[in-house]
């Protein structure tokens, strides 16, 4: 209970919006950038190096009046797997979900192979997860595999 109070003091209540929690601390700013938070006008709280029992040091982003799309979630899952997304409406958590890497990534990441058709034609990219544990993704087009730590978002 004590811990909950401490937590509540660090992060004030949100009427409507989204709380992204359990972001590995070293991935926090990558997530901030990919959600384009610097250009937002709404009320944003960013927590960095917060203590976490689950992952050591974590980051947290709280955004008022913004709800993210499935595409945003897919992007987050590429940069920082297993973050938790809380949707808040009228001070209540109405949805809490762990953001998992989807099996298929449609137009989320760029193919690293310069000779891949996706880098030379106005078209969407498409990857599927070929080995989840190893973090291997395979391009549907050129069939080259890439590790998730070496990919660039579109």
């Amino acid at each position, binding site marked *: 209970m004590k811990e909950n109070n401490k937590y509540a003091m660090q992060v004030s209540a949100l009427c409507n919006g989204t709380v992204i929690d359990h972001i590995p601390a070293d991935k926090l700013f990558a997530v901030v950038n990919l959600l384009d938070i610097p250009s937002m006008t709404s009320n944003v709280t960013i927590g960095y190096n917060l203590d976490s029992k689950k992952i050591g040091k974590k980051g947290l982003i709280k955004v008022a009046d913004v709800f993210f799309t499935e595409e945003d979630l897919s992007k987050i899952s590429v940069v920082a797997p297993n973050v938790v997304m809380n949707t808040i409406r009228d001070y209540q958590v109405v949805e809490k979900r762990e953001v998992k890497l989807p099996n298929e990534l449609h137009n989320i990441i760029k193919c690293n192979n310069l000779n891949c*058709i996706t880098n030379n034609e106005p078209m969407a990219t498409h990857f599927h997860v070929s080995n989840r544990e190893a973090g291997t993704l395979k391009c549907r087009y050129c069939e080259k595999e890439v590790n998730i730590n070496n990919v660039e978002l579109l």
Partner: protein
Amino acid sequence: MKSKSLVSINDLSREKILSLLETAEKFEKNPNSKILDGRVVGSLFFEPSTRTRLSFETAANRLGARVIGFSDAATSSASKGETLKDTIMMVSSYADVIVMRHRLEGAARYASEVSPVPVINAGDGANQHPSQTMLDLYSIKKTQGTLEGLNIHLVGDLKYGRTVHSLLHAMRHFKPTFHFIAPEELHMPEEYRVFCRENNIPFTETTEFSEDVISSADIIYMTRVQRERFSDLMEYEKVKNCYRLTNSMLANTKENLRILHPLPRVNEIAHDVDENPKAYYFQQAQNGLYVREALICDVLDINI
């Protein structure tokens, strides 16, 4: 919208491969007919490839189809900056099937997605060339009587050689044993070794290409060791003649051994091998015709 295309050998099941080979056998017995009378084959070679193009166009002609297309991107509207999608949409309104070679990897998969008519991949960059793999399989089956349980020796450039990688993938259905014979710089990439382990395909590896090494072979698949693949030219000079097959090396090989090569050959097979009955690379190329006749009919859903 979805038509039946052939993009990658990995899309074909064991049953599908065997049934295509059976169809090709029928075409070998009777290569000329009129079953494609009235059809138009679009032959789009964005990148020149004389051998593959002539083989596909001959296949179409021998079955009575007409062929339209180009043999070089410079003579197509791609040189004016037209997207691949637009070229495919245009040609598919004229042709019943498209045969395409492109320098970019994945071009065939994309073309098959946007095209209302079937697309046959005649090579997309370093990625796939399924008609080559099918003619390799046809040649192996024809010379050995089976695809099952063979000792296959892959020699030369196993790092960049697209044909050996596709062959390895396709043979997973047929319990082969592979022997990889290549210089350090051009050895089989790790992902294919992992593939072999995952599919319980036994393999050996060596840098030494000698009489002893090939004495157990049913098939020797030779590839060209290309100068431009080496970062260190000293290294190339050292190995360039080590992966050269000569007639004297074949003295103690198995009776059923056949030598394959995707061609063009430069000096990795000595000319004195050509006269040996174990040399099969020219017939192998000829088999490409029957296999391509089978592939065109298959994507058009024409039963033979």
